[in-house]
């Protein structure tokens, strides 16, 4: 097993890293200090490690870092800042959709992918859209409220532009 130099573009920053082939994208991201990406089940069941890779939301535990060589990666931390949060991040805080917070980053990435494709989803569509993300605290009610709030706000923002 030989290590290889690869490039990971994360939240607009370019990283050159030398990694063994058995390192997952999840492990590589956390080693680069993107600790908003969480390690949950490592089986693709929980969605805590969800990130956007080349425009698609995926489980970073099921991608090898070499497969992400050159790809554009966006994590929850790359969506906004404390001063200028993404509407989803703001809505999750306002709706009380965060309790322990472990699922939140992945949940927001899945919700973003849903709203990118469907700006005005029904409750059923929201439930379907986050069906790969487990939350063991909130019972999902506040999370669904948050996604609805964010969808409304994003639609308003678009109509003002």
């Amino acid at each position, binding site marked *: 097993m030989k290590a290889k130099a690869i490039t990971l573009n994360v939240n607009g920053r370019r990283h050159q890293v030398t990694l063994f082939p058995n390192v997952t994208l999840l492990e590589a991201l956390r080693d680069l200090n993107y600790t908003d990406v969480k390690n949950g089940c490592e089986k693709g069941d929980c969605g805590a490690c969800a990130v956007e890779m080349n425009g*698609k939301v*995926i489980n970073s535990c099921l991608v090898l870092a070499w497969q992400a060589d050159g790809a554009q990666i966006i994590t929850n931390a790359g969506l906004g800042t404390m001063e200028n949060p993404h509407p989803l991040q703001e809505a999750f805080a306002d709706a009380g959709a965060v309790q322990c917070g472990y699922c939140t980053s992945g949940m927001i990435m899945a919700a973003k992918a849903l709203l990118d494709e469907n700006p005005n989803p029904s409750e059923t569509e929201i439930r*379907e859209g986050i069906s790969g993300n487990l939350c063991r605290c909130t019972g999902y009610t506040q999370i669904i409220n948050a996604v609805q709030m964010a969808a409304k706000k994003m639609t308003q923002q678009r109509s003002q532009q």
Partner: protein
Amino acid sequence: MLPQFKFLMPKTLPEALEMMDEISRVIPLAGGTSLLVDLRGRLSHPHTLINIGGLDELRGIRIEEGYVVVGSAVTIADLKRNVLIAKHGQVLQQATTVFANPLVRNRATIGGNLAYGSPAADTAPPLLVLDAEVELMSKDTRRTIPLKEFITGVRKTVCHPRELVTAIRWPIPPEGSVGAFRKLGLRKADAISVLSVAVMLHCKDTGDRDQVRIALGAVAPIPIRAAAAEELLDREPLTPEVIARAAQLASEATQAIGDIRGSAAYRRRVITALVQRLLTNLAKGAKEKKRNESKGNHS
């Protein structure tokens, strides 16, 4: 932490087939949604993996000489939103909406789902009722075999170690053909099937009788067609009595086992009920269509 392995990164399909020819026991990795889980659980111990998910030659969905041809590395998410699949593989598209979850669907591939050889593969029953074929290539060979013969046992296929599944194809169903897929999981999303059923009515424009296809998932070592039930429906019309007999025959075709997701007896009963329900809907749909058509002719 994943075990150690060598990882080959070919840029083209010929390069990939060359590598698989030269090096023994190379396992193809596409979406990785099953294989990486197995590696982590030490259920699989490959020495070398080869990355095929990014190969352009395995990506497209197209029509070719009366067939729908889907590259093996096409993802489940791609199938779900594709217009050709909506038109010519609607029964398969139904399965993509209940396949695992949206995150997994963005990585999992149609070729991987079949080549993994699971009896519970959700794309298998729809592809079986579409009369799909699997295209296999090695450095020097190319062959196409019916999906019915491709999976041979639990996690076993006819795919040779040097071969790669390159495409899945099926004949464009005749106009008016309809199908339906139902998956029974322990919950609505992110579940491995307790069982699944696909049915399809192939309309014949030549005046021949319409043909019914029935396929069942997770009730035998491999996804199966219910041959005896299909033969009955070739001879008899889709009346409630015949449908009930066909559903019974379908259930008798299973070799269901009891496991963590359900008992064998439960599986057999639900197969009877689901086949009956789907065939009844199919018969209703076909009758309504005929009525609408004859109305159209008179106006």
